[in-house]
Structure formats: C-alpha cells, structure tokens
C-alpha cells in the first residue's frame, strides 16, 4: 500500500512536471510553426484599463515606478538620458514615439520622463501580447499604465484619442513589435494618424543600446550594467493639411536622426539631416548575424566610470 502510494505520488509529480514543461507554465504558450496557419485569431475583447488611471492607481503606480522599478532598472543597466529640454516646449499632451527593440524600452522611457509628465503618460500595448491573460493585462496596466491596441488590424480603438483629449500623453512604438535585430523596422502610421486627428505634437525618441542590453528572447538584462541611451527630440507638428501618410515618414526620419545624433554629435546629425543624408537606421542589407553584430557593439558609457580593461 505504502509503496503504491509512493509510486502514485512519484508518477503524479512526473505527469505534472511533463505538462508544466510541455505547456510552458508561467511562460507564453507556443504554437508549432506548421500549425500557425490553422490558429483561429482570438476574439478581441477589450480589457478595461480605465481603473488604472484613477488617483488610487496612479498613487500605487508612482510607488512601484519610483521604488522597485527604478532601483532594478538602474541596478541592471546604465541609462543615459539627453534632450529632456525638448519637453519644455510642450504645452499640452503629446504622442511620444520611439524605436522599439527591447522590453527595456518601456521602463527606460517612463523613468526618464519628468515626474509630472510620467504620471500623466500611458502606453499603447499590443492587445494580443500584453492583454492575452487577465493577470498579464492587470499587471502591465498597474505598473506601466498600458492600454490595449490591436496591432494586426481590427477596429481602431478610441482609447488613445480619449486619453489625449483628457490630457494624457500617449507612448506609441510605431514599429508594432520589438525589432528582431536591433535595427529600426518599418514605422506604421498609427501615431501619425493620431497626431493629425487630435492635433497634438509628436515627441520623437531614439533609444540605443537596449537591444544589446536585453534583446528578444531574454527575460532579464545581460550582466555588466550595459549603457542604454535615450535621446528626446523637439516636438513635431503636422503641417496644415498634412496627411498621416506624409507625416509618418517625418516622424521616422526624426527618430533616425536622433539615433544618428547618438553616434555622432547634434550638429553633425543636423547637418546630415538638412541635406537628407542621415544614415539609414534600418541597418545594412546583410546576413542577420552581421546586423545583430552591429547593434550589439558595446557602447561607451558617458557616466565617466572607467572600464576594468581597455
């Protein structure tokens, strides 16, 4: 009896372990590649996030962001922020647009903003990724003030427009997903559309180094406290009668110029931008490893600390 009970317990543990590993408990489930064409897209149900912008939720978020989140971020990476004076030129809500290559981008952006603006900033997050389970949705909403958007088409959400109307800044990563190799991908037109539709400025932001610090597939930054640069640019306004289709390339060019500026100097970047010679930030047409090799090249830290060896 005792032996059979032990065997039953052992077999049960083995089965549970097999299911936990096979179905990736605690991690995102995966679909076999050959089955992907047969997956039925989930019915999109809008997860309510209004509660995350109530005073109580803002207070809790403030505590989390300024406390553990800030401490962990600064412990693991070395953020270098510049161009914050551009934000002084704003007199109302804005759309903040940045390139996106890592999960670090969200806390980096958020924690580099002035406190008053940070408290009034919401993030557009992929509905199919951050809002696929209630706990992930609630977690990201309370910590980062996210709201869901459909990145694969579907109905256009009214949430970002409502937020802008209520005086909230909205962060959008127009690439729609993290870059697979650190280089910029095609910018979609959602941010430009919002800016034109709601007549708000766009703040371009260039983030460099986050791919090297925590690329896709990693759940935690690489050791060594890598440097990550966040550079804010001047607000961009859609010209009278300018369509989103025309405005979107200007936004993309502004982000590219900021990344160029990060590699050189502000004045050199401006001169190149003036003659339309900003280097492409979409990377060389080369094998993937070479593209990754380039974006993971160690960056110089500007905090004045010396490396252990040169």
């Amino acid at each position, binding site marked *: 009896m005792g032996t059979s009970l032990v065997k*039953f317990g052992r*077999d*049960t543990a083995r*089965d*549970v372990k*097999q*299911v936990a590993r*096979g*179905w990736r408990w605690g991690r995102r*489930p*995966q*679909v*076999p*590649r*050959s*089955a992907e*064409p*047969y*997956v*039925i897209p989930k019915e999109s149900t809008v997860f309510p996030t209004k509660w995350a912008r109530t005073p109580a939720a803002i207070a809790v978020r403030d505590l989390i962001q300024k406390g553990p989140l800030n401490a962990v971020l600064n412990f693991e990476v070395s953020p270098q922020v510049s161009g914050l004076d551009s934000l002084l030129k704003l007199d109302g809500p804005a759309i903040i647009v940045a390139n996106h290559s890592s999960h670090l981008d969200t806390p980096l952006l958020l924690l580099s903003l002035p406190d008053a603006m940070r408290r009034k900033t919401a993030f557009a997050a992929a509905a199919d990724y951050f809002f696929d389970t209630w706990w992930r949705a609630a977690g990201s909403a309370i910590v980062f003030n996210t709201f869901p958007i459909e990145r694969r088409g579907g109905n256009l959400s009214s949430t970002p427009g409502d937020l802008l109307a209520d005086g909230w800044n909205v962060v959008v990563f127009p690439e729609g997903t993290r870059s697979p190799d650190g280089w910029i991908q095609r910018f979609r037109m959602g941010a430009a559309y919002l800016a034109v539709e709601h007549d708000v400025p766009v703040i371009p932001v260039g983030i460099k180094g986050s791919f090297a610090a925590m690329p896709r597939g990693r759940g935690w930054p690489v050791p060594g406290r890598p440097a990550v640069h966040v550079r804010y640019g001047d607000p961009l306004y859609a010209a009278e009668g300018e369509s989103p289709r025309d405005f979107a390339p200007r936004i993309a060019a502004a982000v590219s110029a900021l990344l160029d500026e990060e590699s050189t100097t502000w004045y050199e970047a401006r001169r190149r931008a003036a003659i339309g010679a900003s280097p492409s930030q979409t990377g060389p047409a080369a094998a993937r490893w070479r593209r990754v090799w380039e974006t993971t090249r160690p960056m110089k830290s500007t905090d004045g600390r010396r490396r252990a060896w040169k």
Partner: protein
Amino acid sequence: MSRPGFVLEVDDRTPPLLVHNGEGFLLERFPLGTRVVYPPEALPPVRDVDEAIQNALLNPIESEPLPELLRAGMRLTIAFDDISIPLPPMKKPDIRQRIIEAVLELAAQAGVDDVELISANALHRRLTPNELRDIVGERVFRSFFPDGKLYNFDAEDSANLTHLGQTRHGEDVEISKRAAESDLLVYVNVNLVAMDGGHKSTSIGLASYKSLKHHHNSHTMIHSRSFMDHKRSKMHESAWRMGEILTQHVKVFQIETTLNNDIFGGPLEFLQKREWEWSIKDQASMLGTKRALAAAPAKLRHKIFTDVRSNYGLTGVHAGKIEPVHDKTLENVHRQHLVEVQGQSDVAIMGVPFIGPYNVNSVMNPILAACMGLGYYFNSYRGNPIVRKDGAVILYHPVDYEFSQLHHPSYVDFFEEVLAESTDPATIEAKFEKQYAEDPWYIHLYRTSYAYHGVHPFYMWYWISHALDHCGDIVWVGANRKTVERMGFRSASTLQDALEMVSHSVGRSPSITYLHNPPHLLADVR
C-alpha cells in the same frame, strides 16, 4: 466554424502529444520532424434534424417519396445498423430511433400492419433487449419487441434465409427471408466511416455465412486498398455485385446518415482538441483524468470508458436509391474525415483506443486490438497506405490477455489454438475457418446467447491481412509481450525502443507519421 484537418510537423515548439492507449492515454514526445495527421474539427451539424429526415423521406434521390411506397396490406421491413456503430455509442436519442420513428409514422398513416424491424448484425453478436431499446427508442421497442417483431438477424436460421441467386462471379446471395420477401425494405444506416453504407448495408448486414465468405476472406481483404475506399476495395466490389442481385428481387429504400467528429465532450473534451490549444482547464482535466485512471481499479476504469457516450451532430441524411444516396453520404464523410497527406513514410504510429466495433459493452481482446490498429486505422487511407511498402507500424495498446467469454468465446480458441499454429491469414483460412464456422457450440452460442459467430475472429484476422502483407515490422509499445508474440508481433517498452527495433528495416532516421485519431480521419495519401 470548423477547421480542416492538417499535417503537423513536430518542432521544438510542439508540446507532448496525446496518444490513445486502450483504456487510457499517454503523452508522447515524438522525434522532431514527425508528421502528425490531425482530423478536421467537427463540422457544423444540421440545425433541425427532424426536418432534415422528413425532407429526405419526402424528396428521396432517384426514388418515389416514401409515402408513395407505403400502402395498406404490404409487408414492410425496416433493417438498421447494429451496435457496432457509431463509436463510441451515441447519446440518446439515437439517430436511428429518430429515422425509424419518422418512417413508422408514415407507415401508420398509410395503414401498414405488417411491419418487422431487424437489427442487421450479420455474424455479430445479438443485441440485448436494452441495447435494442437504446437504438430504436422506447416507443418503437414497446410497440414491436413484445410481439417478436423487433429482433436480431439470425444468420444460422436456415428456415428464415432466402437464396436470391449468384452474382456473375458465382457469389451466393443469401439474406434474411423476411427482408427478401418484403414489399419494401427500408434500411436505416449510420455512416460513421467511409467503409459503411451502400450495398454493404443489406448485402452484408442481413447475409448468412454462405454469402459473407465470398468477400470476408484473406484474398479479398489483401486486395482491398483500402476497404475505406469502396471503389478500390475487393470486398465492396463483391458486396456491390451482390447488391445488384438483391435489388433485382427486393425494393430497397436506403436511408443513410452521416455524423460529425464531435466525439468527446465534458471532461474528456481535451481528447479532441489540438494539444497546443489546451487551456489550463484542459490541461487540468487531462492530468486529473490520467491520474484518476491510474488510481482506479481495472473494473472502474473499464466502466468509465464503457459509459462514454458521444454527442455527434448529424451532418446529413439522404434517402432513396442505394448508389446515389451512398455517393452523397461519402461526400459528407469525406468532408468530415479527409486529410491530404503528401507521400508515404517509413514508419506509421497509431494509438489504439478503448473501443472498436466489436467490443461495445465488452472488452477489447488482443485480436480486436490488432484489428482496430492494423485493420481499421491502417486502412484509414485513400490512395496509398500512410506507410511505405515494407515500412514499420508502431501501435500503442496494452494488449492484455483478456477475453469476454460471453461475447467472444471463439476468440479464445482462435488465439490459443489457431494463432499458435500460424498467423498467416491464408493458411489459417484454409486450415481452420470451416471448422470454426460450422462448430455447433459456437453456432448455439451465437443464436441463443450474445456471442459473436465462431468464424468472426477469422474475419478480424483477414481484416489485418493487408497490413500484414504491406508492413515489414509491427511493434506494439507498452503491450503484453506474450500476447503480441502469439500474434506474431513484437513489444517495446517505449517509442524509442520501438524505433530502435525497427531501425534494421527503416534505418536510424526514418520518416514518421502519427495518425492522431480518434476523432476519425481518412488520410488522402498522394
């Protein structure tokens, strides 16, 4: 919306896959690159079943409407498929009940008094009164059974058999006298798989051994490629020839139904879902069921599976002349079961489930397990077998030494006496079949008890003759070594061991295809 079947290629993202294993199941990690054939999801069922039945009876294909065929003073016989289909049995009300009630309603309106209902069980066991009631429903049972007008077909009651003649191939056509002498024979069919229906219904279901032996033999079965494709099946060709003779003598109004793949419901629903789509609830159900089955005594485990009843949705009902009706039926069956597969593989893997056509409310003995895997599953193809010539088949089933003395008495002797001498279908056919077919004790049990006919285990063995002829190696995973050895097969502890055992014929890196059924599928191998 139901999704079509497809072929999965196992990759690093694929979770362990479910494999049926008798009265249980297991999770198996298949080698990378293994192809897994998934059946189409359940088709949307007909919304109004009664309306569909009425429509079929009043607007039949190439036949007068049923009311025009019914008149007072006529002899009406209604034959219906027995308990061997569908599998698992259907939740009440059975589709046969609904059709028979509709037919009887019309017969009552026409003033038909002479009505008899026959379970077309050929050499299968008789159905118990309860089993008959489950199929035809309480009203029909109460109206006909007490007067002996609802009964099982008796293939050994020579006084009640009629020889209708011979086909051009010299095949005897001998069927139920009552059916043969009726003014109208209405056949109510459940077409679970492509093999069923058509002329197989009456020409086999109501036939005697004298008639059946012409197509239920090793030669015919080895040349039925497969018996799920009636145009390439010698067995069906023979049945069709018999059907021609039969329909010259008897007016047959054929009613065929097709069901969808909605087999497992409730806590067992995960069995018909694709594994990577299992929700937390499905994973919990699977774990709970697996552990409960592991802890349950064998009797309880058996009862759990015996009590499984399936929802099934009706995907079509057609009535009228046999051939065009069957063509419509096959369209529906193919819509539900057909999966296109590109090319054969070196190894085919199949999980034999808890139920087959001949162990409903009974146990799956070793011969039935072999028949289910190497007969029905191996033949679930159209075009070419899923495995190449001289390839290997790996099956999962415990193959316990377990027989029902009530239902399968001749199987025990077949296993102990016949298989001990030879496993070659042609040899045992020549040497033993007649003796078993004419054994008075087996005939007595078949006629008076609930035993399958003495010759039935031979038929099961002929059923697998195509697989035996085609495959180089057959290995069972997790099976009782002695029982599979008696049947001429080998047993392995794990899939890895099985692949190791067959590596001498298929190599170290064979192409592998796993047939992920049930729910049922028909591999269209190009």
